[in-house]
């Protein structure tokens, strides 16, 4: 029996040749289409290759029109199950909501020089540590620097979000990863707002860099904005 690996859900349309060559096809029903490849038996392996391939498929298809990307690793056991999934009213609502949107990832990271710039009132701790670099003095200074950095991070995150303002329809804030990370935003924007956002980020960089560095990825499918409340499982 055929099983399907699910990449995401889109509207019925042509699949580019490059993806067809990889076995990607659509299962369509009533103005909705599941992006799948057929699977034989066996599990799906969470390998680098499979992860990158999943992202490639949904991002390629999203260049032309809306795709609701599935989380990695979903296997649908039958065509009937796929059709049942496509028939969910939430799917249609999400396809409508994201008809002209995309997601941008915006991350901020500090250069190490920020550590010297936080907490002007730390000078006594700095002097004490330099005079006698003991573990205790180090922890006292480092903790104070960490506190100052947390404040700086909160301030800059708000400055950035305020600066982007109404260009952003919705935002998901992830916990920034890394000691010198400042923020990690998933931004939902209209597709035609991507360039204005780029310009706004340049303005923010003029204001906040150095020590802040920005990384802007996208336009991506709305990975972070496709949650819906599942009906209770029987």
């Amino acid at each position, binding site marked *: 029996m055929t099983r399907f690996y*699910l990449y995401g*859900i889109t509207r019925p349309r042509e699949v580019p040749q490059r993806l067809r060559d*990889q*076995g990607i096809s659509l299962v369509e029903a009533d103005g909705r289409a599941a992006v799948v*490849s057929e*699977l*034989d038996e066996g599990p*799906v*392996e*969470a*390998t*680098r290759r*499979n992860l*990158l*391939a*999943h992202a490639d498929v949904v*991002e390629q298809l999203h260049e032309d029109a809306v795709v609701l*990307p*599935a989380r*990695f690793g979903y*296997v*649908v056991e039958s065509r009937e*199950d796929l059709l*049942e*999934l496509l028939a*969910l009213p939430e799917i249609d609502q999400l396809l409508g909501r994201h008809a002209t949107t995309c997601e941008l990832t915006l991350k901020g*990271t500090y*250069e*190490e*020089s920020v*550590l*010297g710039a936080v907490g002007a009132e*730390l000078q006594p701790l*700095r002097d004490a540590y330099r005079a006698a670099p003991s*573990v205790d003095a*180090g922890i006292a*200074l*480092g903790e104070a*620097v960490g506190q100052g*950095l947390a404040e700086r991070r909160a301030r800059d995150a708000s400055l950035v979000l305020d600066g982007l303002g109404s260009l952003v329809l919705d935002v998901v804030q*992830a916990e920034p*990863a*890394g*000691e010198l*990370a400042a923020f990690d935003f998933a931004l939902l924007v209209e597709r035609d707002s991507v360039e204005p956002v780029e310009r706004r*980020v*340049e303005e923010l*960089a*003029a204001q906040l*860099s*150095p020590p*802040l*560095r920005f990384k*802007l*990825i*996208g336009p*991506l499918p709305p990975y*972070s904005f496709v*949650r819906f409340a*599942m009906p209770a499982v029987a």
Partner: protein
Amino acid sequence: MAVTQRESSAGYITRAPRSSGLADVLEILLDRGLVIDAYVRVSLVGIELLTIDLRVVIASVDTYLRFAEAVNRLDLRAVDDSKSVPELFEKGGEDMAETKTKGAVEGGMDAIREKIGLGGRGGDDDDDEDEGRSQSRSRGRSNDR
């Protein structure tokens, strides 16, 4: 003046049209996206190992000591040469930050790769942009087993 500022700030922005490396993709695909448990059965190998927390805990003694050491180094450097040549100071800070950040990130990714059997630093840890495309061509093979 405005032009100069704009040019210099552009150096602080990394722009990528698509998620390019494994790090980007891991974060997005494992954490985000449609969740549809009620209708599908998940059949995965290795995914539980990928859910380990990538986040670095800020409030650790180790971090504090590293911060203190860095502040001290920056202080010393400021005393030594910043007053005469401020550009050197800035540039040095930049280089150090880059090295350090990179080391942490790559270390994390190595740990992940080992866990999911993707190999360590040896073979294929180059996350260049073309990889998504070239890798995905072989998707069929990987699934048709």
